[in-house]
């Protein structure tokens, strides 16, 4: 029993966090009150961060917690508090058919699941150190990411800063009183 727990620990953690992520996601789309949905979203974000850790994406996991858990979440909560919840239904654009939602998502899951179950991969790394060794030698995850990001991907990086600038402009243009 103890041996099972130690060898299968990561797998059990995967199932735990995967379950939490799915539960959070279901909560997001099914709750009538967006505040509960936001909490579900937070659970989902954090579980996904943990799942990133299990795949040795330490840096991305921290970014996930930072930006999603700390930033985007705050934004959502502010907006939920800013708007008049009684008027939310006046923004109707598409129908509110939870049965359709259920069918759509079930169909998508069935199609994707059916297909993805057939996907074969070579053996993934039983020993995580192999993944780390495959990176630049002697670097931790954030160093390796930095090394690649700032030497190869600097064009998308600079475009991203313009993108963020536009996002700022958009928030001011749209959010200020006209």
């Amino acid at each position, binding site marked *: 029993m103890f041996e099972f727990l130690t060898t299968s620990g990561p797998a059990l953690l995967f199932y735990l966090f995967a379950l939490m992520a799915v539960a959070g996601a279901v909560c997001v789309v099914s709750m009538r009150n967006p505040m509960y949905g936001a909490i579900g979203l937070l659970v989902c974000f954090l579980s996904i961060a943990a799942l990133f850790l299990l795949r040795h994406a330490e840096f991305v996991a921290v970014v996930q917690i930072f930006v999603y858990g700390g930033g985007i979440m705050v934004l959502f909560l502010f907006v939920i508090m800013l708007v008049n919840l009684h008027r939310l239904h006046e923004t109707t654009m598409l129908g509110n058919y939870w049965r359709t939602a259920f069918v759509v998502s079930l169909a998508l899951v069935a199609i994707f699941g059916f297909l993805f179950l057939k996907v074969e991969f070579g053996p993934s790394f039983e020993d995580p150190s192999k993944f780390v060794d495959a990176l630049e030698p002697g670097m931790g995850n954030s160093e390796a990411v930095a090394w690649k990001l700032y030497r190869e991907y600097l064009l998308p990086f*600079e475009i991203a800063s313009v993108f963020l*600038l536009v*996002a700022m402009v958009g928030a001011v243009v749209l959010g200020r009183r006209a």
Partner: protein
Amino acid sequence: MANYLPILVFILVAVLFLAASLIAARLLRDAGMGRTNREPYECGNEPETLALDHRFSIRYYLIAVLFVIFDVETVFLFPWAVMFDQLALFGFIEMMIFIAILVVGYIYVWKRGALNWA
């Protein structure tokens, strides 16, 4: 995996502590949870509007957006700082351009008065 053991223990302790204090509070508190206790202001002030109708100032939103944007900027700054030495001058200039672009945004937001609390 063993590296994460302390974190696991930490989370466990946190959860236990939280659960323990909540349970303790429930056991210790006064049984009378009347209507007054559920009011927004327990001291007796009448709230002016219902909680759901009351809205915060829009400025909170602008501040939150700025926070998120600069949060993302920090995300990009961190790995750069870790590798500052190896990335050398090239990396430095690169990051200065990145920051300069966002400073333009900062100036814009400032001049546009989005940071004023009028």
